[in-house]
């Protein structure tokens, strides 16, 4: 790798170096400041009640000093993971279709369509979920607003960005190797399955971990369709509340320990995402070593 000292010490380079360092430092500092801010805001409730209350209290009634966050952590993780499990194969195969099966004109139209869907704001998905999806699920089992509704809306939101990411991953796959495969007489499916997919596995994984982060952080759409009842779901039809919905619902109405406890939900969310990023990194390294 380049060291900044081995670079050519031209004046223009120096300027570029300073600017780049400045921007990356700013980005880094912002992240650290956000984390410090969350810790500082959560501190009063840690000091008063300790760390354990967030895991062992009987439930979440902050005004009655009960602060259990486990149901919400479970809901956030379940909704995000299931949504990604649903959207990822769809997104990846949509990329495969776009690059290797669709006629160019159709692929062009299809891409524009996906870009359009990717641009729809999350609150629109939430509203659609509330007035269309929730009543549909209600017909199967009340109350309709449920973990399932959240998963479906999240999957719908993640799918287009996953499709676009995998599209560009497949697009940048070297043409020489494709020609080589066809010279060897590989079928189209064999080429995709045995050549392309294994070699872009890492990039797909990186795209995937970004999507999980996004699903965990999504707020408005989830708040509108999930029902927001704090409980451990026994089935996909049970209403749940995610960490993000918890903050959005109560933050502007909270004072004192209640407010501080909401910052703890934020802190836990950030820690969850850090954990996810690190484990994705670890997985990528293992794939590379193989």
């Amino acid at each position, binding site marked *: 790798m380049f060291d900044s000292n081995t670079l050519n010490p031209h004046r223009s380079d120096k300027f570029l170096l300073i600017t780049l360092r400045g921007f990356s430092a700013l980005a880094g500092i912002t992240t650290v400041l956000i984390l410090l801010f969350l810790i500082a805001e959560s501190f009063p409730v840690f000091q008063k009640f300790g760390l354990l209350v967030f895991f062992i209290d009987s439930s979440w009634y902050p005004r009655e000093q009960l602060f259990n966050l486990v149901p919400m952590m479970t809901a956030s993780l379940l909704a995000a993971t299931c949504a990604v499990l649903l959207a990822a194969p769809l997104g990846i195969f949509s990329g495969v279709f776009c690059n290797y099966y669709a006629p160019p004109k159709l692929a062009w139209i299809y891409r524009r369509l996906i870009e359009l869907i990717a641009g729809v704001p999350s609150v629109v998905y939430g509203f659609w979920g*509330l007035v269309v999806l929730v009543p549909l699920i209600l017909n199967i089992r009340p109350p309709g607003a449920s973990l399932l509704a959240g998963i479906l809306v999240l999957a719908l939101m993640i799918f287009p960005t996953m499709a676009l990411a995998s599209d560009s991953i497949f697009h940048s796959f070297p043409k020489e190797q494709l020609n080589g495969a066809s010279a060897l007489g590989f079928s189209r499916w064999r080429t995709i399955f045995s050549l392309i997919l294994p070699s872009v596995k890492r990039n797909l994984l990186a795209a995937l971990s970004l999507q999980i982060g996004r699903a965990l952080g999504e707020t408005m759409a989830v708040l509108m369709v999930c029902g927001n*009842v704090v409980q451990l779901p026994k089935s996909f039809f049970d209403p749940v509340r995610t960490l993000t919905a918890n903050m959005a619902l109560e933050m502007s109405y909270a004072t004192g320990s209640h407010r501080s406890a909401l910052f703890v939900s934020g802190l836990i969310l950030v820690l969850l995402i850090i954990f996810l990023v690190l484990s994705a990194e670890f997985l990528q390294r293992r794939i590379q070593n193989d």
Partner: protein
Amino acid sequence: MGYKMKKLFCEIIFPILASLAFFNIASADETKLTLTGSSTVAPLVLEIAKAFEKKNPGTKIDVQSGGSSRGISDARSGLAHIGMASRDLKPEESDLKNHVIAKDGVCLILNKKNKIEKLTDEQVVKIYTGEIKNWKDVGGADAPITVVNKAEGRSTLELFENYFKIKNSQIKASVVIGDNEQGIKTVAGNPNSIGYVSIGTAEFDARQGSQIKLLAMGGVPASIDNVKNGKFPLSRPLNLIVKGELKGLAKKFIEFAQSPEVFNIVRQQYFEPASK
């Protein structure tokens, strides 16, 4: 170079970031007012503010919603000139002063398809605490009840809790909602649900063709008129909250918001003007 960069950050950029964080939005400026608080009061105050700005050119009124608790804490901390709250001040909030600008009621709503026409207070409590889980137990169809509750901290929930003398932890909700509109959409989309929202919003939406109906309470039909004559049991004042002595632009604005000039605006929002 590395050292210089560090110095740059320590001496220039960090202080700027830090001062941004502590920047106070309610700086002393006699042409600008900031109001924050209750999501029930905010739309009304926004309309009043428009009329006020028209009448007093050069003034700028900034209205942000975020709940009564926020309104009260912002008025106290000085983050806003005036706080908005849709409830009475509590004893521990006696350092603040409230000015009533309108009255609103909270009522129970059902889906229009539900055959139930009235529920006693006792039945409502039993439904919300999970003792009654099916509409057939109160004379309705054989269908499970979807209980719609408000999120913790909302003044509508506090008013509801106080009236029915139940605690939030006793309520067995099937859906928890944020603002009134979300509540109305949820009940309108589910024939077996029950919820409670502001009468003003509910009456407005029902008139606009929303699939909901308002339940009478203690024999008194839920309507703005019954809030006005004080008959409706579940009602609340819409307050503007200030700390310390009322003066300057804030005084002018509150006097305007209580004057007969704005009564039409208040009625258009389906609230009842507070007659002094």
